[in-house]
């Protein structure tokens, strides 16, 4: 996905950019509202991540004029304020959702997904691998015309594997993608989700292979 990140803090901006690209997203980073306008004029984005306090103005004003101009790129606000009143005010201004700093990327991803799903999901197209079709936004895999719904963690696990077929992912790497960074990890957590996903993929030529002592990979048989 292609993100526009609007954040004036250099360290945070750079970190978020790096962190999102680790998940395979393309991120353009604007350090001011003017900068953001320039980016929006030349490129189209799946989602805008917007800070509120910026050197050349208030993110909420930007949001309001963004909505007045009937531009429909979804906006998730990164706010430093957590109070319920602020949340209500933000959503009233036209934000699709918000995350409170500091935020968890697994949660951000979940919110992005929810926003895109709510917006009708024109942003992403279905992927095909082997004999299956994968629609990440609808959270479904279709095998031989039969559609199965994936639960959130199965979906994210499959997303990681299908993005790089035949590549071996360690349990640790998969953990990082599936669990929030603050969450306690149990050794068999990944095994549980791999087991479930295998069940959903039954009947397909796509298989999740266990590479003993190393991890897992998606292969076509």
């Amino acid at each position, binding site marked *: 996905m292609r993100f526009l990140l609007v954040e004036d*803090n250099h*360290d*945070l901006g750079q*970190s*978020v950019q*790096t*962190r999102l690209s*680790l998940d395979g997203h393309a991120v353009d980073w604007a350090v001011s509202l003017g900068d953001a306008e320039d980016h929006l004029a030349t490129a189209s984005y799946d989602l805008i991540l917007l800070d*509120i*306090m910026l050197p050349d103005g208030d993110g909420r004003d930007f949001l309001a004029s963004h909505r007045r101009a009937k531009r429909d790129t979804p906006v998730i606000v*990164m706010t*430093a*304020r*957590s*109070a*319920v*009143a602020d*949340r*209500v005010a933000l959503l009233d201004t036209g934000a699709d*959702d918000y995350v*409170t*700093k*500091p*935020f*968890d*990327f*697994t*949660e951000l991803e*979940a*919110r992005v*997904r*929810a926003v895109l799903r709510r917006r009708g999901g024109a942003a992403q197209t279905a992927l095909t691998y082997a004999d299956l079709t994968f629609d990440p936004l609808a959270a479904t895999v279709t095998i031989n015309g039969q559609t199965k719904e994936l*639960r*959130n*963690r199965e979906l994210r696990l499959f997303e990681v594997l299908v993005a790089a077929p035949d590549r071996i992912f*360690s349990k*640790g*790497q998969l953990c*990082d993608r599936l669990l*929030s*960074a*603050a*969450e*306690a*990890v149990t050794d068999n*957590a990944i095994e549980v989700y791999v087991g479930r996903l295998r069940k959903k993929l039954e009947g397909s030529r796509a298989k999740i292979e266990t590479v003993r002592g190393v991890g897992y990979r998606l292969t076509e048989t």
Partner: protein
Amino acid sequence: MMTVFSPAGSIRRRLVVILLVVAAVLAGLLFVSVRTVANTAVETTQDAILGAATVAIAEELRGGEDGLTIDIPYAAFSMLGATGQDRVFYRILVGAETVTGYADLPLPDAPLSGLKPTFFSQQYDGDVVRTGAVSRSVLVDGRSQIVRVLVAQTRTAQDVISRQMANQAAALGLGFFVFAAILSIFTARSVLTPLNRLAEAMGRRGPQDLRPVDRAVPTELAPLMQALNGFIARLRGALTRTETFITEAAHHVRTPLATVRVQAEIAMRQTDDDALRATLRNIIRAVDDSARSAGQLLDHATVVYRADQRADELVALAPLVLDVVDSFSPTADMRDITLRVDAPDEVIALQFDRLLIESALRNLIDNAVKYSYADGIVDVQLSTDDTFAKLQVLDRGRGIGDGNSVQLAARFKRGENVGDVVGSGLGLTIVRDVTRAIGGSFDIKERQGGGTCAILLLPLA
């Protein structure tokens, strides 16, 4: 709590009392002056008749060689008789000798001044009599003699007229007083109307309404209005500064925290060293913990403030519950937790501050999601009877152990079995404070079959 102050007297009462006192004094003066004028008029009229009768008698005196001829004219007495049942007395003296009439009729103290009558009042024969006296010199036997003529009359008719006059004066005074009293009540009301309207307008304002008061008021109220608007402006300024301060403080604390967290996440991605990963996880957890505590502290302060200064409105509970649950669904989704809402179709409405209810709800649902295991189910059930809305949040998480609702709602108190779940110990305190403010009840207990059951009872509008 709202400050109840005891008023120091009432302007209206003071105004009415002062106006009534003034009216009473004026009514008294009116009574006295009307009576005095009337009495004087009656007396003057009476004296004129008495004087005319006396002079008429005196003029009929004829001196001669064989003595004094007195021919009392009938008309003189008929003049006096016309005034009613009064008795009339007369006395005529030649020198010091009474020649006819009542010899004991008292004489005036002062000397007489010819045919111009002198009047005086005196006690005589059991009554007060008004006497008119004149003197005249008459030639008797060739000698000039002073003849004095006194005519006296009782005052019965005069008193009757005076009493009538007095009654009328009293009626007039009383009428004036009643009229003035009614007028003063109206005046007090009309004078106080702008003040009352202003007070009413101020009372109608919600706690968030800090616009200056823009009303046309009488000149006398202008200083009050200026002071009021000045105060409102200062309050607004102070609040804005506080808001700005909180926003900037939050920004300057939370932005570096966010940077630390993101960088720790990145570092975690880039290492396979289990010890290092554990350390990074601890850093992330500590960041979450501090950010959360800061947020909850602020939320708690907001709840305490708003519980005092409530912005009450009619809140439909079901849409609010759905809205809050909806905002938690991505968080729940991350751990494959299912959020289920069971709310009746009928409208369940509360009269309360919407933000406070939302705060309580968010904390309960946040807890349920946080303490649930992955793949769990959280149920939010809304039901109602005639007086209360019942909101239950049920999970199959780790439960509350030996804790009870009173202990868990204490500030910064967390359950014994929270393990490594991030929390501030303020969530249930917020729920408890909101429930208290609305006059409902809050209970949290172990759910049958494992997990937690939180129950809110909120009084209906």
